[in-house]
């Protein structure tokens, strides 16, 4: 009997926890609705970035047939899908919101409540990108119609599922990195420099702008020891059929390893940051 009561209590506890974070999610989505204009303005920049890349490569392929083993259509497909994947999984400068919580002392309000701040962050971040995500999907459709003659568009069901899983993992890797950068605010009054540098570095190393294999061997080797290459480059390679399903699976496994690793780092940094917050009062 006792164990049954315990089980019920446990289940109720879980339900309560879910309700909490579901509320946070729903509030954040609602909040996003009041920022329609801001989201729409992001959308314009998104497309701009893709257009710039498309123009550059179109010019390059005027005189050459193949770059690093990529034909013209393969390259256009590469940049379109890298662009698409990257905007599906971006956190839209979430690090700044984390830093703001810390600097403005909003964190204080969170700490006195019976809730986990890290889980709160993950929920808010996810609620925050829902609408932007839908917009990127629509954009993706427009871009597809525009480039449709030049895009490679064949993928089997299993690969598709793996791809979706990989992109979900990519989103959380990005989110964890954002939270980590945001936590720098525990020690400094400014995080924008770090944020910007890492953004550029990660876009470069993840192969968002061009296939990472075009880089000198040295860089390519290093890139496999960083999380970025698994977030965009490997998924696009899988999509284009340049790597096998098993290799894709391996990439996904490495993403999961990175997620676990980053989560542990977040916990450690959070604890250290909190100690500082507790002693300094910021």
């Amino acid at each position, binding site marked *: 009997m006792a164990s049954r009561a315990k089980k019920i209590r446990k289940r109720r506890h879980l339900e*309560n926890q879910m*309700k*909490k974070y*579901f*509320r*946070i999610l729903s*509030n954040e989505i*609602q*909040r996003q609705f*009041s*920022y329609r204009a801001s989201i729409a303005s992001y959308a314009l920049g998104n497309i701009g970035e893709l257009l710039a890349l498309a123009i550059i490569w179109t010019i390059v392929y005027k005189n050459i047939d193949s770059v690093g083993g990529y034909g013209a259509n393969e390259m256009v497909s590469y940049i379109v899908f890298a662009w698409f994947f990257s905007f599906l999984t971006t956190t839209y400068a979430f690090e700044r919101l984390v830093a703001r919580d810390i600097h*403005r*002392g*909003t964190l*204080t*309000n969170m*700490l*006195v*409540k*019976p*809730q986990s701040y890290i889980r709160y962050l993950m929920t808010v971040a996810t609620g925050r990108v829902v609408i932007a995500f839908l917009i990127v999907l629509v954009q993706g459709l427009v871009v597809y119609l525009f480039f449709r003659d030049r895009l490679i568009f064949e993928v089997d069901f299993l690969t598709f599922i793996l791809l979706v899983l990989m992109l979900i993992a990519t989103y959380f890797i990005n989110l964890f990195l954002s939270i980590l950068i945001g936590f720098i605010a525990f020690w400094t009054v400014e995080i924008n420099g770090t944020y910007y540098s890492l953004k550029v570095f990660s876009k470069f190393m993840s192969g968002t702008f061009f296939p990472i294999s075009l880089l000198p061997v040295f860089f390519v080797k290093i890139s496999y020891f960083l999380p970025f290459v698994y977030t965009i480059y490997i998924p696009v390679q899988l999509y284009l059929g340049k790597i096998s399903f098993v290799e894709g699976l391996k990439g996904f496994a490495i993403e999961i390893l990175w997620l676990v690793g980053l989560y542990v780092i977040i916990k450690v940094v959070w604890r250290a940051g909190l*100690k500082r*917050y*507790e*002693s*300094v*009062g910021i």
Partner: protein
Amino acid sequence: MIIQVRNLSKTYEYYKKSPGLWASVKGLFHREKLFKKAVKEISFEIGEGELVGFLGPNGAGKTTTLKMLSGILYPTSGEATVLGYMPWKRQSEYQKQFALVMGQKNQLWWDLPAMESFILNKEIYEVSDADFKENLDELVDLLDIKDILDVQVRKLSLGQRMKCELVAALLHKPKVLFLDEPTIGLDVVAQKNIRDFIKQYNQKNKTTIILTSHYMEDVKELCKRVIIIEEGEIGYDGDLASLIEKYAPYKVLKITFEGEGIKKEEIQKFGEVHQFTPHGITLRVPREKAKDTARDILSSDLPVDDILIDEVDISDVVRKIFSNGK
């Protein structure tokens, strides 16, 4: 006892930087570490249902103490328990039983109507539907905010927002409530509204409340007992009434004169002259004689333009306590 504090201390570390560019460059390599003792070995106890005022100037250590009791700050030394819990362990059993409201910071979601934040707090504090409805109805009624619940928080006035902050903090019926400058920046009417509410709520629910403020009015209206903190130490802990009698047995008359003004001798017979210019003076008179003196001055042939009866500034009282104590 609901709150017990023994020898609680908090020391902040910070760095010294001399002015100038060169000093900044040097600061990159070597910084002199300094320590500020914000709270020094304070001890006090607070019983159930008490409404205690923390008084003291800026930087006295009031907020630091409240932050330690809320579990946000880790003390440098000493002990404290609230409801039997050590606050800085941040156990959720403790967190569900207290609330902290800071006049300078808000917990409501800025872009959403206050109602959404209320519902979120309901889930966070795991309040049942029935309790939520009952508490909300009661609070909304007391504060008279029925028609602003569905307005985005950022469109509310400061006074309205403060009311909503209070509702958000009280939905889970905390047994202990910390109010840090709840009336800061509000106009007189809004201040009074908030004060009246706190008073009623405390009487009805027997919530133990610590209130910090540097408005004398807040403390006078609400608190029977005050704890005065200055430079991290407790200067006075006891009845407010006897505090005022003991340390501020007089009121201040501020009088302005028109025309030629007056001479000092003409006014001295009315009381102790504190500041003097021919066109404006401040006068200290015994508390019970303040009205009579004001009437006497008005009916005299001095060219009075305006007369104002005021309380002694709370910081003066505090300063007096500390200079007497040493």
